[in-house]
């Protein structure tokens, strides 16, 4: 899988319709990741599903999606954009992950990203990614059923990132995405109520950037597969920080709310200017460079 540039859309951001994904491609993304899709349709949680904090967003959308059987239409349409299409997949069992992944690939996905890190839906997401045995089984089953690269998206809500990263790669992950959102809550003082209908959600945006970069930094020295950095990236400096920490590519989500889809172009331009100024020929030359001493 070759990317035109190292920027990718993060899963769950405008990723349910092919036309929206098309706008992201127009905005300059080097690859697109769909919203996480499961075997059956899910309505998600009722509102509020999103709440802003001083330097981020907490969301508990609850994985709304039309189910893979319906979603294949969007996949077929979105595969016509000339960038790699990665379908994010979740399931309530290893079999479900594998089934959904297979249907996604059959419909034309260039790769699948396993969402084993959503912090707000029970019996899937991070409940899988926090459990080494279950995680390994999920990755193995998916690997066995699809001939395309399998990315595993990691949760920061674990004691030991390295352990989980190693489990995922040993089970066959072709790349790791780090990170999904950080478990968080917001409570309104006036009503004494958690604001999100699901109460607990996941924190994204600027607030989590230093945590996300640390996760990439930690796992870089222990795995050989490419790492895709994600969490709070708003500008090229953020992207470069992730790459220097060990990321081969990066994903952008929350920043799209402020900067629009053209954030991908802006970040790519910034990375290229940086490489040129520093005398490097490609992103690969600076991947993990901060580990040099």
């Amino acid at each position: 899988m070759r990317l035109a540039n190292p920027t990718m859309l993060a899963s769950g951001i405008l990723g349910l319709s092919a036309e929206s994904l098309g706008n992201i491609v127009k905005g300059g993304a080097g690859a697109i990741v769909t919203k996480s899709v499961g075997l059956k349709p899910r309505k998600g949680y009722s509102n509020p599903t999103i709440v802003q904090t001083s330097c981020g967003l907490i969301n508990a959308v609850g994985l709304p999606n039309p189910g893979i059987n319906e979603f294949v239409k969007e996949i077929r349409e979105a595969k016509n954009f000339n960038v790699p299409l990665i379908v994010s997949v979740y399931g309530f069992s290893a079999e479900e992950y594998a089934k959904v992944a297979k249907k996604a690939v059959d419909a034309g996905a260039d790769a699948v990203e396993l969402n084993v890190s959503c912090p707000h839906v029970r019996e899937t997401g991070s409940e899988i990614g926090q459990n080494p045995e279950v995680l390994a089984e999920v990755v193995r089953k998916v690997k066995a059923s699809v001939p395309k690269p399998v990315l595993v998206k990691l949760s920061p809500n674990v004691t030991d990132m390295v352990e989980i990263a190693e489990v995922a790669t040993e089970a066959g992950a072709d790349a790791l995405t780090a990170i999904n959102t950080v478990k968080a809550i917001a409570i309104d003082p006036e009503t004494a109520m958690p604001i999100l209908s699901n109460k607990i959600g996941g924190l994204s945006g600027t607030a989590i950037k230093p945590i996300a970069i640390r996760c990439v930094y930690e796992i870089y020295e222990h795995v050989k597969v490419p790492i895709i950095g994600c969490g709070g990236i708003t500008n090229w400096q953020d992207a470069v920080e992730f790459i220097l920490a060990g990321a081969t590519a990066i994903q952008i989500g929350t920043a799209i709310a402020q900067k629009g889809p053209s954030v991908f172009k802006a970040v790519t331009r910034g990375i290229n200017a940086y490489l040129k100024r520093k005398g490097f020929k490609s992103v690969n030359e600076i991947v993990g460079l901060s580990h040099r001493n």
Partner: protein
Amino acid sequence: MKLSAYRIATNTLRTTRILSVKTESPTVRTFTFKDRQCANAKPGQFLMLWIPGVDEIPLSILDAKENGIISVAIKKVGEATQALHNKKVGEIIGIRGPFGNSFTLKEGRILMVSGGTGTAPMLFLSKKLASRVTRLISVIGAKTRDELLFMNGMKKTVDKEKTQIIATTEDGSYGIKGLATTPVERLLEKEKFDMIYTCGPEQMMRKVFDLAEKYGVALEASLERLMRCAVGLCGSCVIGGYCVCKEGPVFTAEQLREVKNEFGVSKRDFDGRKIPLE
């Protein structure tokens, strides 16, 4: 693409108290509250209103005064709106916004076509247009006479010489019998308009759009879609390649042409599936 279009400062949830509740019709009540950040909201913009413990729903801004007194008109259709109707003065609600774009303020000869609570942004718009228009015809539709909204408000807004208000009711209990669209074709045949603004049930707006296309009149319509984040992230509100929360809710005829196969036809359900408009 201006950066300012992507500012999300107004996305912070703040709580405020209901200042007044007024019954407008058997199903519609207007609520006022104070919110500084909405003070400069424009007609067409909406806010997300949090009913603690129940839901958070998008509502068009009915009025925004410089002193931060904001009002919204709410039609009782389900759980959230019912819960709101039960709320009394002094109770706490939460506000995010204002969100989205707004109607352009045209000069000259204007036609407005609205139905149901769609009349709310029209009333707000007509206040801002008052000084600029030479003619304003406002067609307001409802099922029955007692559901006709803001007739008096609209009358007060623009001066009588220039303004004409046409009511339609499905049961004929007031004004013209039929849908809000019923008088529109006749009006377009008779007069030339510089702009049609429309807000209301989507099938109604679609008809108005088709007529506007036929008669070559500019049009802006305010759309509704499922809103979650309201800041262009979650994708629940998409129509074609547009996020209604951010690139809308007001769309021009040119844009509506692009989404012709969805506009007035289908929307996306809570699970993201396309379903026919009921």
